[in-house]
């Protein structure tokens, strides 16, 4: 680099640029949180959904599945499993694991109560109603 461009100029541009773009990011984030109520389905955040999310987290479902495309890629996307399969199927499915089919990928048995299963389904239903700009491309996730 040429001699006219000094280290202290580079440093000043670094600090100036970083502060500017960080503030811009904060402004965009602030605007996002303000618009979220229109998209994030918060009207349906019931206590059941909250409890369902807790079960989702404490069983580490994200360690095998994606949810809205984030997580692990070992097992099906679950952000739209509610419309794909329906609540009864989901409950029956979770109760029926592991499949024990030889060589097939396995999902553990979590020994959830009927109440916990209902809450989990409520959480998955709430998730499926978030406005995700039409993602995923089709029902298979």
């Amino acid at each position, binding site marked *: *680099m040429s001699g006219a*461009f000094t*280290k202290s100029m*580079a*440093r000043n*541009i*670094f600090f100036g640029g*970083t502060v500017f*773009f*960080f503030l*811009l*990011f904060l402004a*965009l*984030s602030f*605007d996002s*949180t303000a618009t*979220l109520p229109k*998209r*994030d389905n*918060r009207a349906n*955040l019931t206590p059941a*959904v*909250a409890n369902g*999310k*807790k079960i*989702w*987290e*404490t069983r*580490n*479902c*994200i*360690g095998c599945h*994606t*949810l*809205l*495309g*984030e*997580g*692990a*890629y*070992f*097992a*099906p*996307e679950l952000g739209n499993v509610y419309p794909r399969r329906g609540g009864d199927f989901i409950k029956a499915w979770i109760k029926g694991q592991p499949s024990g*089919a030889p*060589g097939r*990928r*396995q999902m*553990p048995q979590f020994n959830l109560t009927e109440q916990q299963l209902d809450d989990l389904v409520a959480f998955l239903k*709430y*998730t499926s109603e*978030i406005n*995700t*700009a039409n*993602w*995923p*491309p089709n*029902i*298979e*996730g």
Partner: protein
Amino acid sequence: MQYKSQAVATPYFIAAIGLFVGQIIFGLIMGLQYVIGDFLFPMIPFNVARMVHTNLLIVWLLFGFMGAAYYMIPEESETELFSPKLALAMFWIFLVAGALTIVGYLAVPYATLAELTGNDLLETMGREFLEQPLITKVGIVIVALAFLFNISMTVLKGRKTSISLVMLLGLWGLAVFFLFSFYNPTNLVLDKFFWWWTVHLWVEGVWELILGAMLAFVLIKVTGVDREVIEKWLYVIITLTLVTGIIGTGHHYFWIGTPEYWQWWGSVFSALEPIPFFAMTVFAFNMVNRRRREHPNKAATLWALGTGVMAFLGAGVWGFLHTLAPVNYYTHGTQITAAHGHMAFYGAYVMVNLTMISYAMPILRGRAANSNKSQVLEMWSFWLMTISIVFITLFLTAAGILQVWLQRVSETPLSFMATQDKISLFYWMREWTGVVFLIGLILYIASFFVKGEDKAAA
């Protein structure tokens, strides 16, 4: 070694490499579960292996960063470390806390672990990469603060260089953005929104400052190029990083319920993120070409050049591949993501740590560089691991393209599981390549034990 207290870096480097081995073993377990679904089930379910794999990765990279800081900062500041005792105490606390956490994942069901460790007080567990129990997370913060106090005090009492400043900024940023891991609202969209403030702003933000500072430090040492030149480059690179990378966070805000203007902001800014990685490659080659001395540690120079190239390929090229919203619509959450994650993490953060270890360990052991025999073996391990990761990435990319085609683009989409069946050949090839990677890693460790004529003491 110029300052006695730099020696505290040694246990950090050794622990880092030990945990790296553990990470790869669990990677291979998962790789096998991909094709033999019931392998080790129910003893080690896939999700448990995954937590161990990714958490070991993060913890060993942190060990590497801390060891690097303890090595670099006294030399940059031209003074002994503020408190070597504190550094050693934190080493043991971090190692024991890390080991207990891994044992916890493996020994008790995750829900029980959550109950035992106070998750009910503040629910933070069960999110990707942030699976650690609350007490572990608090422990990480305490260790990080003690560490930051220690190195900040060292810098304050000594010479203040740009490399020190950038390293400190990166490490303080690492600690600050980790605090978002304690924020877990019930609202899934908000949860995901701020989850990325830890994950993305780490790897595509503050960690790149650490990466740049470590690379600059080693390049000064092995090339003898003027510090003014190297530090100017460093500032240019990290400016490009943060100017593109902060708003680049938006490439994760396409499909998670966030406003749709992020498809523009995220695509445009993240499409520019490869530029700083490209600059880093040019920087590394440029400095080595303009070298003013022939440093006897050829292996360290090779790692430094490799970091530039592989970080650019993994983060820059493979990142760009799926970062534009119309492409990401199809590739989001597929094997394409996994392909990119592997090459980016390896190329940037694994390699920069191995660069530092390769440069510093011989000196910590009382010589400027290892014997030729040892260096030749180390270079073999460089090529084996690096070529393996390239092929792992290519196989996962092939798997990902087919997955997208069969499951998402097709007029008659297959289910997820049916698709996985069809692409299992690529998972087998990934697994075998992973075995080669492990051999490379074993050779790397073996190179530490190869004797021969040492190069003169530093």
